[in-house]
């Protein structure tokens, strides 16, 4: 018994001592060369090298890919084509009708993504808000209910998709329930409109717990004395909601909307496993278009994919700048009150 205990306790300790020993000698030597404040560079170096290799360098290379053509992966073998890739993507006789475009799938993906983002974010924020308001009441088992709504956030997108695929399949439990209610079953994922509906639904199901949690934190930061004052003045609950809760929650709501938009524009995992982008291109979104163009086709058009990435990056940049603006406004405006 004592022997077992000894092992359990000493293993992390031994590991820690080993790591300390391995790094201490070179770091001590570096410290002698650099001096104390500049040794900081040695501490940030690993993180910076990784970021440089896998984030900053790729941004530069992405531009190179976007402005060169061909199917080669190696940059030197790619001929310079200037704006040709972007021009190909934007070659349309009528921008409102994807079938008149050279890259019709790109435009379908753009329209699908726009609709998806609008519907998913709007409905999700609405449900998150309602759930947060309900969870903010004095109810029994609040921790349990909060956990229930949050649990799907942790599940992997693949698991979420397979779970719903199993529920929605032709002889699945949903159709069985409908049948017992006297309604004929539907092949949910083989119908374009239903497949889109379920993409939005499953995505909301999987992510709303996260936004509920953020909004709940915002609600709990609203000082209780405001509600007491409202009660003294015989304000109706509805009036307290529209005059106290919503205005004070507005900064959080805006942050949540933008954050959700940034995520929705990049939707891929769940939907790719759930519908594969189909039927046809009914649930094809922009990230899947990039993935397919660059990695899943026999002719890999890296240039087109990189150009589409630029369009996505620009969208995200705009959204992020909006978010930064809003959070700064929130810190300057509502922040003082929340700290009180």
């Amino acid at each position, binding site marked *: 018994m004592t022997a077992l205990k000894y092992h359990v306790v000493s293993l992390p300790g031994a590991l820690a001592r080993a790591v300390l020993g391995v790094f201490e000698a070179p770091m001590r030597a570096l410290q002698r060369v650099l001096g104390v404040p500049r040794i900081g560079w040695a501490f940030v170096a*690993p993180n910076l090298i990784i970021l440089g290799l896998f984030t900053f360098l790729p941004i530069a290379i992405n531009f190179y890919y976007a402005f060169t053509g061909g199917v080669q992966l190696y940059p030197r073998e790619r001929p310079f084509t200037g704006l040709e890739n972007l021009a190909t993507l934007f070659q349309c006789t009528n921008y409102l009708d994807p079938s008149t475009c050279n890259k019709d799938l790109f435009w379908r993906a753009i329209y699908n993504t726009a609709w998806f983002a609008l519907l998913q974010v709007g409905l999700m924020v609405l449900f998150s808000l309602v759930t947060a308001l309900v969870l903010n009441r004095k109810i029994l088992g609040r921790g349990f209910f909060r956990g229930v709504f949050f649990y799907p956030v942790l599940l992997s997108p693949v698991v979420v998709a397979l779970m719903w695929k199993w529920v929605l399949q032709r002889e699945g439990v949903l159709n069985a329930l409908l049948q017992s209610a006297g309604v004929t079953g539907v092949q949910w994922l083989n119908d374009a409109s239903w497949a889109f509906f379920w993409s939005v639904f499953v995505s909301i199901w999987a992510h709303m717990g996260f936004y509920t949690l953020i909004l709940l934190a915002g609600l709990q930061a609203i000082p209780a004395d405001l509600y007491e004052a409202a009660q003294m003045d015989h304000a109706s609950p509805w009036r307290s909601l529209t005059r106290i809760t919503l205005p004070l929650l507005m900064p959080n709501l805006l942050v949540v909307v933008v*954050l959700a938009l940034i995520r929705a524009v990049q939707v891929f995992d769940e939907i790719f496993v759930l519908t594969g982008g189909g039927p046809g291109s009914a649930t094809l979104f922009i990230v899947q278009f990039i993935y397919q163009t660059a990695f899943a086709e026999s002719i890999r058009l890296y240039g087109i994919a990189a150009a589409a990435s630029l369009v996505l990056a620009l969208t995200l940049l705009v959204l992020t700048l909006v978010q930064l603006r809003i959070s700064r406004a929130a810190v300057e405006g509502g922040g003082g009150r929340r700290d009180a």
Partner: protein
Amino acid sequence: MPKLGELLTATRGRGRLDWTDWLSYGYLALGVLLMFGPVLWLVLSSFKTPAALTEFPPRLLPYGQAMVKVEGQPEALPLYRAKLPNGSTSEMVELRRIGIQATMIDPKHPDEQVQVNIRDRQPVREFHLATENYVDIFGKFDFGRFLWNSVFITVVATLITLLFNAMAAFALSKYRFSGQRSVFLLILATLMIPPTIVLVPNFLVVSELGLLNSLWGVIWPAVATPTGVFLLRQYMLTLPDELIDAARMDHASEWRIFWRIILPLSAPALAVLAIFSIMWRWNDFLWPLIVLSRTENFTLQLALNAFQGELTTQWNYLLAMTVLTLLPVTLVFAFLQRYITTGIASAGIK
């Protein structure tokens, strides 16, 4: 009992539930059904036999064909409720079947064989957990390999993430060196660059480093998380500088100060980052999908995705694999729910 009643009605400081309370509880009950229902259905289904899975409408609980051991027969035989030629109905086991004629015997009189048309009999069902679904996936699909790949990526990437992010956070919170502010802004700026927009060039970088089809090709690009650096830096800023000064007096090297003083004191923040990193890496999908193309390198998520195309006729295995993939995250959540939810509420990260 009156205590319980008091507890149930103790809302809004008044004596009884008003209609808004009923509405709230109704909403939450519906939420529980909608959020947990599919998960419960998945788990129940994963214990069903292939025959039970094709049943429509499906039963809630897993039922299987009842099997009976009959004297004189080497193996257990399937039990049916059969209509006999003499018009009576009796529970019989099937000995063998040719076409639509089944040779059946009564378990109590194993010597008398009866010919029954298969339309005149119904299988007898009993509650049966098809645990073989879970056992078979290890033998049939190399599930252990995918599990190992996922565990390896998750553990190694999390350890490196903790080390690198803590080092950077230490430098950014406890030193004043020229260029420090730019470094901090540079790391923060990467928050704005999601991996989805650099897929193609990252593929080139990883393949140039010889990491294609290697688990390290998934690990390295993921370890320098800006969220982690930010989270740890904010925490380390609250640690008193006097500790560091005292250690310097004792001639401790800067690395020793980091390893022996700062890291242990940052344990709460490191724990939060560790939980997040484990969830991120365990659930990763798009990047591994691009980097790992050989089956033997697949993570659990990739294996599930690959099998869902091939195994649509073998849902029993697919469901069992899905449940095993969701199990670790569920356990982490069950035990660490409080830390996860407060971590998210305060840091706003996912």
